[in-house]
């Protein structure tokens, strides 16, 4: 059993339901993980998001993980068509969407079958029994109804007639059959809200705004929500309801919202452009799991934001480079396969030294790979996948809300150093959500964009002595007419120059420029026990699992420290010293050891690797076990 769950007061397993019926006081829980699973048409993402929102508004720390089926139109009722949404909630320090599931809501046999392995022993299964028909059971290879034999022994199973009861509640109101089907998830939400003693008003308000033009939908959904809630209340099926502990120390005061990684990236980009006083330009081509950045920015035309859906990823970055050349803050967003297509243009961006932010929301590869699953296997691609010596800045976002800060940091650096920046996010944090304290604008870093206008002694490749950035001289500026391109440029003048000395000099300039970013990034933060023998190093979305695992280990008397690397190119100045301070180093990443190879080769450190490449983020317990093993061994 995972750490998080072991901290909670386990419900009394020995007592039978009958005996417990009278105990009505809700039981207090610490960290709890809930998973909603159903057919892709069952509205599981919405159900999960609504519940996560409700608990966040209620004051819980929440982190979520969305799992979409790989096939959009997988046949109904099949395992391939199962969509899942997991969330972990607790009073504080929720860093992941949870390891093992405490409560599974399964809307059909496929959802039950494919998710049972995630549920801890003695976990709660709330199952829509109406869908357990012979036909549906067959579809997923259940010979017998698992609700009727001993297949689910060891779990606390609650069969609920969600479909029928929704219909019973809505039919008298004259709601159409199709809408009844769509409202099932609200019945489930009502029931889960009852189970966790969460209020409904937040969902009711949401329904009112969301369907303001469709009063009949508001009515149907409200009725279903209430019916589910009442069912929990009046039915004695459930022994007890639960309540999540109140936080011991208060959260930082302020206004909070709940957001996912792709929205956070989008909002970060708009914020950066506004802070810098620039027009934001996005060139993109749809690809999972990055498309939402295109969707989100396309919704924000009230800002100076232009979105260009190009004919392919190559044209998308090409247009972004053109836009940057002409003075926009230019972005291109994609995932691994699209990154592969962008490489030639990325080399051009390095060569013409223009600002550009490239977002790679990573998924499993190679090739089409696992479009809807996460992986961190594009680190090498980001660092080196371009012809020639082609250094650029690479940043990794470590959580949904960190995507906002990473977007701002990327824009700050690209504008200051006039060189492209790659942001690595992944499918986990792109679709995962958490509560975020909205920063006030004066908390944000300074963002400056300066177009060169002085025609006196203008040289396109005359560098700023400190940053080595070249001037940004945009078309339309009289007196600065000049040519740029991918051919090697002469130092200072920017004219074509392929001479040996000049090329060597320019290669070094480009490398040095990126290296100088080191002096512009904050020192690494060591978490956990700084004087432990073991240091865990991670990057990107493994932050949550590592941080929690390190916290749990130290609480259990296993001393361990961790650092998380956001700036992957250039690497932080202090990283080398930090690595040397520890007897043992463990690198945790969702690939076969890319950061591991990098750090071993640069710092000659005998680091060990914890690798995972099954398309699923690290569990806290996996990191914790490895920490124990290394501390002992």
């Amino acid at each position: 059993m995972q750490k998080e769950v072991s901290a909670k007061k386990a419900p009394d397993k020995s007592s039978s339901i009958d005996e417990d019926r009278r105990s009505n006081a809700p039981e207090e829980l610490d960290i709890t993980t809930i998973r909603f699973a159903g057919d892709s048409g069952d509205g599981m993402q919405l159900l999960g998001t609504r519940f996560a929102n409700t608990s966040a508004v209620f004051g819980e720390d929440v982190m979520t993980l969305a799992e979409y089926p790989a096939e959009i139109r997988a046949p109904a009722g099949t395992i391939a068509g199962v969509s899942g949404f997991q969330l972990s909630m607790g009073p504080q320090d929720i860093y992941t969407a949870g390891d093992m599931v405490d409560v599974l809501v399964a809307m059909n046999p496929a959802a039950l079958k494919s998710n049972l392995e995630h549920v801890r022993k003695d976990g709660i299964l709330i199952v829509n029994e109406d869908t357990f028909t012979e036909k549906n059971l067959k579809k997923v290879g259940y010979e017998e109804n698992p609700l009727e034999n001993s297949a689910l022994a060891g779990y606390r199973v609650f069969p609920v007639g969600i479909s029928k009861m929704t219909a019973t509640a809505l039919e008298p109101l004259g709601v159409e059959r199709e809408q009844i089907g769509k409202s099932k998830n609200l019945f489930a939400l009502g029931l889960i809200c009852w189970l966790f003693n969460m209020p409904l008003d937040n969902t009711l308000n949401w329904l009112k705004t969301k369907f303001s033009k469709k009063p009949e939908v508001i009515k149907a959904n409200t009725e279903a929500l209430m019916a589910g809630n009442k069912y929990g209340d009046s039915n004695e099926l459930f022994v007890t309801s639960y309540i999540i502990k109140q936080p011991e120390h208060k959260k930082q005061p302020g206004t909070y919202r709940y957001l996912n990684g792709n929205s956070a990236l989008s909002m970060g980009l708009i914020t950066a452009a506004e802070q810098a006083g620039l027009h934001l330009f996005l060139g993109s081509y749809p690809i999972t799991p990055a498309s939402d950045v295109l969707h989100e920015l396309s919704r924000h035309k009230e800002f100076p934001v232009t979105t260009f859906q190009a004919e392919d990823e190559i044209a998308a970055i090409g247009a972004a480079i053109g836009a940057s050349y002409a003075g926009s803050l230019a972005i291109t967003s994609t995932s691994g396969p699209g990154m592969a297509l962008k490489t030639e243009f990325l080399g051009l961006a390095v060569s013409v030294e223009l600002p550009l932010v490239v977002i790679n929301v990573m998924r499993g590869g190679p090739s089409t790979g696992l479009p809807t699953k996460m992986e961190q296997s594009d680190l090498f691609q980001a660092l080196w996948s371009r012809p020639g010596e082609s250094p650029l800045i690479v940043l990794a976002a470590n959580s949904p809300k960190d995507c906002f800060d990473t977007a701002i940091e990327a824009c700050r650096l690209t504008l200051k150093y006039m060189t492209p920046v790659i942001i690595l996010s992944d499918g986990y944090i792109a679709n995962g959500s958490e509560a975020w304290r909205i920063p006030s604008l004066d908390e944000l870093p300074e963002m400056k964009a300066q177009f060169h206008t002085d025609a006196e002694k203008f040289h396109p490749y005359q560098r700023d002595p400190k940053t080595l950035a070249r001037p940004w001289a945009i078309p339309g500026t009289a007196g600065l007419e000049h040519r740029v391109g991918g051919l090697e440029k002469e130092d200072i003048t920017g004219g074509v120059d392929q001479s040996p000395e000049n090329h060597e000099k320019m290669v070094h300039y480009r490398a040095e420029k990126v290296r100088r970013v080191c002096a512009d990034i904050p020192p690494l933060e060591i978490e956990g026990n700084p004087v432990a023998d073991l240091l865990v190093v991670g990057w990107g979305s493994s932050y949550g699992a590592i941080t929690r695992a390190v916290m749990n280990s130290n609480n259990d008397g296993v001393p361990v420290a961790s650092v998380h690397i956001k700036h992957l190119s250039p690497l932080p100045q202090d990283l080398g010293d930090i690595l040397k301070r520890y007897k043992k180093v463990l690198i945790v990443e969702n690939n076969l050891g890319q950061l591991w190879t990098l750090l071993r080769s640069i710092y000659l450190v005998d680091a060990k690797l914890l690798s995972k490449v099954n398309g699923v983020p690290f569990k806290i317990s996996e990191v914790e076990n490895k920490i124990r093993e290394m501390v002992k061994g």
Partner: protein
Amino acid sequence: MAEALVRKDYVSDVEVRWCVGCGDYGILKAFTVAMAKLQLPREKVVIVSGIGCSSRFPYYVDTYGFHSVHGRAPSVATGVKLTQPDLSVWIVTGDGDALSIGGNHFIHLMRRNPDINMLLFNNQIYGLTKGQASPTSPQGKITKSTPFGLIDGPMHPLPMALTAGATFVARVPDTDNAMITDVLIQAHKHKGVSFVEIMQNCNIFNDGAWFPIAKKANRAENSIVLKHGEPMTFGENNSKGFRLKGMDIEIVDMEKDGVDVSELLVHDMYSKDATLAFKLANLQHPEFPYPLGVFRQIEAPVYESGVSKQEHDVAEKLGRGDVKKMLHSGETWEVSV
């Protein structure tokens, strides 16, 4: 009032590196003449190119210039245009650049219809890489990469452009300075995408590809200059012409065949229906003379105008965006001290 700009003002101080005798020189000259005639402020002109001999063009013109990557200048140019719609944006490309590696970008540029002018220097060969077959090389062509003859058939840029939705389509020979200048000026004035095929001689790797029209003396017999509203005539004394026979274009000799000029096809470059332009664009030499001049020019919504208008309308409707408002949108909650 600033002094009028002369041709030389548009010539950069970069030494031109094309082979002596290359057709690109004539095009460069005509381009700078057109610039001077249009009196375009130099800072308002951006030339974006791909890779190839032709794509060195921007270095030689003293405006803004961007030598990008092979085949993909249209995307860079589109980004420039979307950011600064009032710039005069030109793409210079080659037959390999535009039609082979850049074929996809080419058709999408045409269909979007931004106010960008694309000049395709068609020499039917890969010049810069020293003489391989290109997508416009004729079948059977012996080149370095096809020593026993080219097997694939050629692609015709004009019908391609028309099919993809180009709103201004023209063709000119590299040797007719006046015609190039004139067509470039029209292309600039056209609101929407302009596609100009320039029949360019690569005297090193494909000399004489356009031989029938290269010399002024041969041009009358081997080409037909399209003029809006005028009957389609050609030949020494303009005695020959195009007539429609059923669905096909046929050549008639007015004197010999006793055909009156009134029976000839009359060019209508503004026709909403692209059929005539398409038929003309498909005529192949030597069965037919090469049609030259402007095949088609129509009005259609301009891409960047549509983009700006939409952005403007949304901002008008919702009010100018405000970061704080955006960050606080949706459901929020307060945590107090």
